[in-house]
């Protein structure tokens, strides 16, 4: 998603990317704003199916990052797990 985020940001729209498990993609692709979830496996970007509190928490975190991040390339590490408690 980092490549897509860079393109959208160049078009004048602010972006926040989630990034699962690995730090390497953000380090190489360098999206404008990233929330890194090091304990989220590939295939479950917003947690287990049906976990609406987790979905809400992550999307609110992304909205908060939009408002508070002022430095291009920022990576915010959030140590959540998909099974909780968080």
């Amino acid at each position, binding site marked *: *998603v980092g*490549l*897509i*985020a*860079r*393109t*959208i*940001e*160049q*078009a*004048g*729209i*602010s*972006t*926040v*990317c*989630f*990034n*699962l*498990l*690995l*730090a*390497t*993609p953000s*380090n*190489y*692709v*360098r*999206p*404008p704003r990233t929330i890194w979830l*090091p*304990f*989220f*496996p*590939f*295939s*479950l*970007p*917003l*947690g*287990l*199916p*049906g*976990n*609406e509190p987790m*979905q*809400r928490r992550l*999307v*609110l975190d*992304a*909205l908060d990052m*939009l*408002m508070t*991040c*002022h430095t*291009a*390339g920022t990576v915010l590490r959030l140590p959540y*797990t*998909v*099974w909780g408690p968080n």
Partner: protein
Amino acid sequence: MDMSEGVVALLRRARNDQDFRTILLRAAPDELSNLGLKPGQQAVLLSNLLLTSPFGPEDLPNWDARYGHAFSWVDYRSQAIPWTPFKIPIQHAKVAFITTAGLYRCEDSPFDTQDEERGDPSYRIIPTETSREALCVKHHLGLVGPGIEGDTNHLLPLRLGQQLQQEGNIGALAAEHYSFMGYIPHTQPLIERTAPGVALRLCADQVDATILIPV
């Protein structure tokens, strides 16, 4: 056959067979390679085995050391990072979602999960009002799919976006959202054609912010 059917089969067996799960978790990378798993598939398999149930720090490998280069990332380390300051109150902003979960409206064509060399750089438009029954998933990771009763909000949180709009946490949810299939080894068509196409549509919809959800 989709590229990850072997991973899905191993995951299913490991979830029903604790001894087999232990064998997989203790296996060295070359032993997993002998099962026909490429490094990227190993990362998918092991992360889903380990991280979907309680774990301790001692259980975790150094994922980046082991799998950081299992995929060919475009290297922008020496280039400037695009930046659009977010200046308006979030309560007034129009927000769109982009997922790479391979979601598509069932009436549209599915993604191509067969082309292992190039992947599929195309995208599908998901209108906000699309019902869960109207959405299908086709991803090269066969384990990506809907939850109970076809729920796909863990892949594209449209219902949550509508709630946030009703609650006033955001100004509006965009009219359209976008879905890619997150396996695109050949990135040039994405960078030159399809990602700019989505950016143009977002501009036309006067979207202020986009949240991108990978798979």
